[in-house]
């Protein structure tokens, strides 16, 4: 069974990520008093992009490699995680640091692609993306480190649920708030869709991409969003367990859908912040996350 889990994870995420994205779009439309696209529209979008001509705008291999790398790294993350509360075979070799490393690799691929594209808007977008990564990744790291501190292990299967598991103390409550406040930045939605900023940067880092390359980036982002929703459910709602594997997966998916509702509502009711404003906001989050880990070390 443990050999099947990584594949099952990947398949589930590949199948469901566009659906969650569709839910996000539909809900946003409802808030905006629009009809909105059908919830399966993201599947059509991906198929459409995958079927298009592969334009090599920059003509260099880093440009072509970046989307593949981003997609692969995101899928690798998904393969490692204990989805449905059950760890796969990979968890034996890979701990929480690997997840952080792979997520950073996916983010860095976006930067490589933007830098290789050499477009002015792409470069501005890349610099914003880099700032966002530097400021937001620590919050992710702290979330996992808090769990690790509590059970004194970096094993993902144990550390993730432990952050708010057995001892749901002051530190867990603080981290929960910090995670929610950082959620929009993790998933790059308003008010933190700063790197893509459609009206000024025209999708920023992705401006030179089209067709299958763009599809890979978009797919990777959808899966990444789903991952962050799962991480929230897994870390802060560990009590949502029945013990039956299939049922646990279903419960987690439903809880993730609720997280997506939250993402949609916050995204639809906020304007985009400027990067300088966002950096000040992230700085507060980092300090708060550090404080949560500190409290965790003190056993609270």
């Amino acid at each position, binding site marked *: 069974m443990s050999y099947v889990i990584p594949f099952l994870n990947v398949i589930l995420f590949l199948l469901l990520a566009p659906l969650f994205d569709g839910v996000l779009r539909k809900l946003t439309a409802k808030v*905006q008093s629009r009809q909105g696209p059908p919830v399966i529209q993201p599947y059509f979008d991906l198929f459409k992009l995958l079927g298009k001509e592969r334009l090599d705008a920059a003509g260099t291999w880093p440009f072509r490699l970046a989307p593949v790398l981003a997609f692969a790294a995101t899928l690798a993350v998904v393969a490692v995680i204990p989805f449905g509360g059950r760890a796969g075979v990979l968890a034996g070799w890979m701990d929480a640091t690997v997840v952080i490393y792979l997520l950073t690799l996916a983010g860095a691929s976006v930067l490589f692609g933007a830098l290789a594209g050499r477009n002015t808007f792409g470069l501005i977008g890349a610099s914003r993306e880099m700032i966002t990564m530097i400021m937001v990744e620590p919050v992710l790291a702290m979330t996992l480190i808090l769990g690790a501190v509590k059970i004194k292990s970096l094993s993902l299967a144990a550390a993730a649920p432990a952050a708010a598991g057995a001892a749901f103390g002051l530190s867990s409550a603080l981290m929960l708030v910090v995670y929610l406040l950082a959620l929009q930045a993790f998933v790059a939605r308003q008010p933190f869709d700063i790197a893509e900023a459609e*009206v000024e940067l025209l999708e920023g880092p992705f401006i030179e991409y089209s067709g299958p390359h763009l599809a890979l980036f978009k797919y990777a982002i959808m899966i990444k969003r789903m991952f962050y929703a799962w991480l929230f459910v897994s870390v802060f709602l560990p009590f949502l367990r029945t013990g039956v594997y299939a049922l646990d997966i279903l419960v987690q998916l439903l809880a993730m859908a609720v997280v997506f509702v939250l993402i949609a509502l916050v995204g639809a009711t906020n*304007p*985009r912040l400027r*990067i300088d404003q966002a950096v000040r906001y992230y700085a507060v989050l980092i300090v708060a996350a550090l404080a949560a880990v500190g409290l965790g070390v003190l056993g609270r």
Partner: protein
Amino acid sequence: MTPEKIFEALKAEFGGAVGGSSPAAPGRLFIDIDPSRLRDAANRLVGAGGRYQVGVGTDDRHRNGTLGLIHFFAFDGDHFTVGLRTAAPADHPDFDSITPDIPAAGWSERECRDLLGMNFPGHPKPKKLVTADDWPDGIYPLRREVPYNLIPPAAEDVAYQLDEAPPGTTIVPVGPFHATLHEPAHFAVYVDGETIKHCDYRGFMAHRGIEKLCQTQVSYNEVPFIAERICGICGSVHSVAYCQAVEMAAGLAISRRAEFIRVVCLELERLHSHLLLIGVAGHLIGYDTVFMHAWRIREQVMWLAEKITGNRKTYGMVIVGGVRRDITPEIKTETLAILKSLEAELVSFEKAIVGDTLIHRRTKGVGHVPREEAVLWSLLGPTARGRGVDIDARRDHPYAAYDELSFAVPVVPDGDVWGTIVVRLAELFESIKLIRQALERMPDGPVLTEAAEALPALRPGWSMVEAPRGESFHYVLTGEENRPERWRVRAPTYTNLQGIPRMLQDNQFADFPIILGSIDPCFSCTDRVAVVDRRSGRGRVWSKKEMDRLSRSRS
């Protein structure tokens, strides 16, 4: 202050250089000045409280061998305007540039240079403004001998030379096609990191010579239908301004009822234009929910406009002498009912926007220009009123039926983008009040007054209409063949766009969209688009079948 006193003051200071003065109408005065003292006289007028409006170039070579130039100044507090009129021989058409002192004159002078071949020694930026980069030298489209449909051969390898970049900056090209712009224009934004240091503008990409077309091809009462198509939003503004200018030139007093109906059209336009802009402003800061709801509320205004004028966009309503449709008692009742529900929705809409602190964070202190500089750049409309400049053509230079209606002119001292939004929100409610008053007080009578006889030639007329974006200025000089000899349009965006580099200075690049958006730029108003295809020079009429096929094949 009166026009006569201004004239006497100029006469006392410049003596023989001041020719005569001729009142064109009450509150409208021409003062003739020798070109050598033009710059001093212009400075004198600005010093006396004049606001630079526009420069109008005229081709008078067939009469006296000169090219004429009129700089218009408005004295808003004293309710009059002065046209400073000068002329220079066509073989040596040099006029001292007044732009170094009055920056708002920059474009008018460049336009005269491009279209009439005048020279402005001392102009700080003597680059092409209106004509295409490959337009040949020596052909000046507004001169009489140049045909309206002239198509000079295109040239290769000609490009606009951008301003030199300040040290340490890189250029971000915003345009000619960019998500921030809804029409073609090119802003070269010079950024240091993300801070804007300078901005160069190259626009007029859709310039198709609408003024030339109307000066050579159509008749007085056909112009309004072209005039209202200058802009996609303020149709009535341009047709009313043009018709008022012609009516002033003809000395034609139109029926009072028509004037009230014009007010209704103009205020409907303000309602839907402001709602459009507030929605777009939301979109520009990444807040699409504001965008969608503003446009949802706006839709009922469009339907109302269709009921009243037959068009969603208040087109086809205004002609010289009045309007084409009356407002029936049924439409009046219906309009009042719609206004009531509209007002209720706007109250909660305003509350939602004013109460949203994140909107404050994105707009307060952004695009800040102090009041003195707003006056220096002659900023107009909400762009000026949001910066503490108390001007409004409806109150300062009353036209149509505004003299009989009571309304407030909201002015806030903020000086930033937020100020312009606050002003627009307040104006929405004033517009509703105005429409209600106009409908209630409208006297009975005909809606169209025919002119008794043909219009004599060479009568000048000019009029200002407060468009949603600010004052629109139209100058008409009547001509021989039942059409204007000269018609000059200056939409508010023409003036406000010139102030954009100042507004952008030292702001963040992320704020570029909202700063530009805050003037509610209308590039078609500045470019003055006509319906002639430039490549073939001919109109192409698509059948409905072809249009259907075309739109389906593209979607």
